């Protein structure tokens, strides 16, 4: 029976099922997992196969599972830091055989103190987190408001259709011009809004227009000044 079993394991290692029966192979694997000897055989057969195929790593680690298990045991648990420190100290405790019961008690109490402090810290962290988020959100909102207001202020100073009147070498008579062609008989106010959209062609024409009108306004002002001395 053992012979048959070993043969079956061998064929499994060689990647084909010993019998056509699906249940049979499932049963074999179950058995193999339960049976220490069969497991060892399975391991050995693989090792033999690896050696034959020259797939053995430089340093051969026969028992990987043990090292992994150790690594896990060594690693501090991240999810609950309180208990991890507790276990950590207690493992230290267990290692040290000479520690008396009283000392153990003392450590236990310090542990609880540490525990409480850490919990408090965690609580504060938990409390601070949403508050911080709210603060960030609030400051973002504030920035937005400030930004928007800034924009609005800008718009106030330089309205949409303020065209820099003919740049007469910095002669900044800050005439904010609103030039438009009267097409309909609406009031000035509404007219100012009608000419919102304009394409480049119009813009070029507008500059010329601007120049013409600016020249007129300029000359008017000059003539008014000059004219005042002749009556």
């Amino acid at each position, binding site marked *: 029976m053992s012979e048959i079993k070993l043969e079956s394991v061998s064929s499994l290692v060689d990647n084909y099922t010993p019998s056509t029966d699906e249940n049979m192979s499932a049963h074999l694997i179950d058995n193999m997992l339960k049976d220490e000897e069969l497991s060892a055989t399975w391991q050995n057969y693989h090792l033999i196969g690896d050696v034959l195929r020259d797939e053995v790593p430089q340093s051969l680690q026969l028992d990987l599972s043990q090292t992994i298990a150790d690594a896990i045991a060594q690693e501090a648990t991240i999810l609950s830091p309180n208990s991890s420190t507790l276990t950590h100290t207690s493992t230290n405790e267990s290692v040290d055989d000479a520690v008396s019961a009283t000392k153990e008690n003392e450590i236990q109490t310090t542990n609880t103190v540490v525990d409480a402090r850490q919990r408090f810290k965690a609580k504060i962290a938990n409390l601070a987190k949403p508050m911080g988020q709210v603060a960030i959100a609030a400051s973002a909102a504030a920035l937005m408001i400030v930004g928007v207001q800034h924009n609005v202020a800008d718009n106030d100073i330089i309205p949409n259709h303020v065209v820099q009147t003919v740049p007469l070498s910095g002669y900044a008579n800050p005439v904010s011009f609103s030039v438009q062609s009267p097409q309909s008989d609406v009031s000035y106010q509404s007219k100012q809004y009608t000419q919102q959209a304009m394409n480049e062609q119009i813009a070029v024409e507008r500059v010329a227009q601007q120049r013409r009108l600016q020249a*007129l306004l300029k000359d008017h002002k000059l003539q008014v000044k000059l004219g*005042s001395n002749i009556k």
Partner: protein
Amino acid sequence: MKLSVLFLLLLSFNISAIATETKSAKLWLERLSQSLRQLNFTASFVVVKNNHAEPYHWLHGIADNGQELEVLTRLNGPRHDVLRQGEVVSYIEPEQEAYSIRTDYIRGPIPSVFRGDIKALETSYRFISVGRSRISGRIAQLVRIVAKDKHRFSYWLWLDQKTGLLLKMAVLTRQGNLLEQIQFTHIEVADQLSDNLAQLQSAELPEVVSLAYQQQHKDLSWQVDWLPQGFAVVKSNQHNLNTYNRGEDRAVEFMLFSDGLVEVSVYVNLSQEQFREPEYAIDGATIVYNHILQGIEVGVVGKIPLATAKKIAESIMPNVDKTKKNNLPSTPNPVIERQDD
């Protein structure tokens, strides 16, 4: 129209009160004129139009020899100063050489008629004294200068009860839309001439521009057929419309009209183009209107409603008294010529 105005007036005032209101308003305006001529004052004001404000500083005083001294400075941007020593007014502006003119008015944001004879306005405007309010921390009397027709704007003045000086001025349309205002932020009246003005007294102003060669009442080949009542020709001439080194200088026939409070310039010249859509710009209460109709380019500038500007521009017609029409020699603008020297 007259009826509706009367109706409105009836609504707001007792009919018997109108006469006294007008009389009181006139007295207030006369007081303003007197104060502007005789007081030593230091003032700051802000002209608010087109959504922004231009601050000014204004000094006025009487020297020991009775000479009026005045300084008007624009505080933002390039320097725009107006200095006055009695009958000589100097304009110091960034884009041209300083020049002086022989006159007794400073041309600034405040209409010069306020320091002159207010009766000149009576044909086109009526005066109404309205009530009191608080302006610039002082008690102010509101006086309205209301246009008698729809062809011009109305002016509201708030006058200081103590000194009679201007505290606030607003230019409004007939519908009551605010176009432009001047708000005083500071007024100080002193007995003594301020130091700045004492300095001005001894300062040497730029040379007075001689306008002798400029014919100010030239017969032009074009004339304006329609003007709102009360407007009269101040001067008419031909000069180059300077567009500042853009090679687009053009000779224009120019007429300046005034109804006492506002000036309207009319420019006429022949154009290569046959037609151009009317175009205009608004600077506070000032409109700049331009169009080409049948090869004639007409520009109208002044503190008047668009409809008025349009009507004036459309009323341009050849001067029937004038036989010669084309290729008139143009006299260059005196100030511009000085610049070329």
